[in-house]
């Protein structure tokens, strides 16, 4: 069973030691803490909910309250070695603009997405004709924060359109973890429940 911890561990494995990191949508700071302990990074978090920011700071992590859609523009070009956006891009207003911003402020970026091309999602919609509900996408259509869902192939297309280079992809489902140098193969779009991309300009 691939759980949230596996996701964090895989992202952590992609980050260089002692890198300067911005974690966009850092939540309660689990990833920042893991990166600090395992990779000794200099980490900053940006989080929409103030209570979560307060929790991060109480844990000794640097974090500020802010919005991925509007506040990435604050940061100067290339001010981080790596910018991380874990399971967040599908909940933003303007994912395309955010992708451009991530690559501007970070030398590299790591983005993880739930794959809307995953077979269970397809099956759910095909069988019942209703918005699919899976483990990764567990909200009803009317209360989901995920307003910009995409499939792995959709994301790869957008990167190509923006001339963004995909260095590495890790595709996961509940039984399997597969790594690719560059973009993943098309089977991944069917069998992968989630994908983690390491991208750069």
């Amino acid at each position, binding site marked *: 069973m691939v759980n949230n911890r596996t996701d964090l561990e895989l992202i952590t494995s992609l980050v260089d030691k002692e890198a300067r990191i911005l974690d966009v949508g850092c939540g309660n700071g689990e990833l920042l803490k893991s990166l600090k302990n395992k990779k000794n990074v200099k980490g900053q978090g940006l989080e929409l909910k103030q209570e979560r*920011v*307060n929790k991060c700071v*109480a844990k*000794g992590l640097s*974090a500020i309250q802010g919005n991925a859609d509007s506040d990435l523009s*604050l*940061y*100067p070009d290339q001010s981080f070695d790596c910018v991380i956006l874990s399971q967040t891009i599908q909940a933003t207003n303007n994912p395309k603009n955010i992708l451009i911003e991530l690559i501007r402020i970070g030398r590299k970026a790591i983005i993880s997405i739930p794959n809307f091309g995953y077979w269970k999602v397809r099956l759910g919609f095909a069988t019942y004709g209703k918005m699919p509900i899976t483990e990764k996408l567990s909200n009803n259509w009317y209360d989901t924060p995920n307003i910009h869902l995409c499939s792995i192939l959709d994301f790869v297309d957008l990167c190509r359109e923006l001339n963004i280079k995909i260095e590495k992809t890790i595709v996961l489902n509940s039984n399997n973890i597969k790594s690719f140098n560059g973009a993943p193969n098309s089977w991944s779009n069917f069998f992968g429940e989630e994908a983690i991309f390491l991208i750069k300009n």
Partner: protein
Amino acid sequence: MNNDQNKLPCSYFTDNKPLLLESGTSIDELTVAYESYGKLNKDKSNAIIICHALSGDQFVASKNPLTDKDGWWARMVGSGKPIDTDKYFVICANVLGGCLGSTGPTSINPKTGEEYGLNFPVITISDMVNAQLRLVQYLEIEKLLSVIGGSMGGMQVLEWAASYPDKIHSAIPIATSSRHTAQNIAFHELGRQAIMADPDWHGGNYIKAGSNPIKGLSIARMTAHVTYLSEASLTKKFGRRLQDKEEISFGFDADFQIESYLRHQGQTFVDRFDANSYLYITRAMDYFDLEKTHKKSLTEIYSKTNIKFLITSFTGDWLYPPSENLMIVRALSAGGADVSFVNINSDKGHDAFLLEEPEFDDAMRGFINSVSLEANI
């Protein structure tokens, strides 16, 4: 109190090297009255300076000898507290221009042998910081682990970080602003006018005249005190309740509890504060404008800084509201600084930073611990 000030039991540092002021004049003999808690470690790396607010003093964690009350931040500073005096050497100095032992308008002017009064030069926040720097140098501390302060104390923290970035590891400005707004200045002007309208002020020469403008000073305090609270906290604490009576009196006595409370605040303040000091310190705050003083934008002032910042604001603070603090956060982020920002949910107004706010304590403790780990303490 004016004559007793030099007898206050605390530490004193005196310096005969003139202190050049922002206004271009100088103070020839500088005295800094301060308190310290905990022990300075061998490599002098565990020192923290706490900068006090307008009506604060050096007695941050010890009994104030004038009021016999606990230190103004005893809940934050002490053994086992978020600013742990078992671990850190904590210094708090009475500000330049103050009236509890540091050089100020009640001090003797060495040139005349009399109290300065209004001959005391107008001082600024950066002058206060420069006086503290002298103390830090005297204590042979190369680099402070942290500089911490709320309100006017936060302005000093911002000024420390702007002028002496190599001398501090971390900065914790709390409920503050990078410049005084028109509203901030307006409230201070009310207070100053109240003092100067009191006939006992005698054009500032009340010590010589053997009087004390306690009415003016207490009204100044009453006005200011309202700005430290919030409508929610006033309603919760007092509402429209009457003071020791069942019915309104159809007169101008303190019918309402809030009136009685404010009068008490004013009356007790005059026992521990000097009217001229109040004029000078409020003026220093009004003149505070970091961008103007440093002739740079906030982002430029702090760009490439290695200082780790924690900014804190309180939702119910309308004197130095979250938006003012957020402006500093944004400027720091834009400059690539390592900055944390917590906005504490509280209806207690500006004074929340002095009061029981567990979420604030947790943030302070977490941040200071992380800084001390990074500094190998």
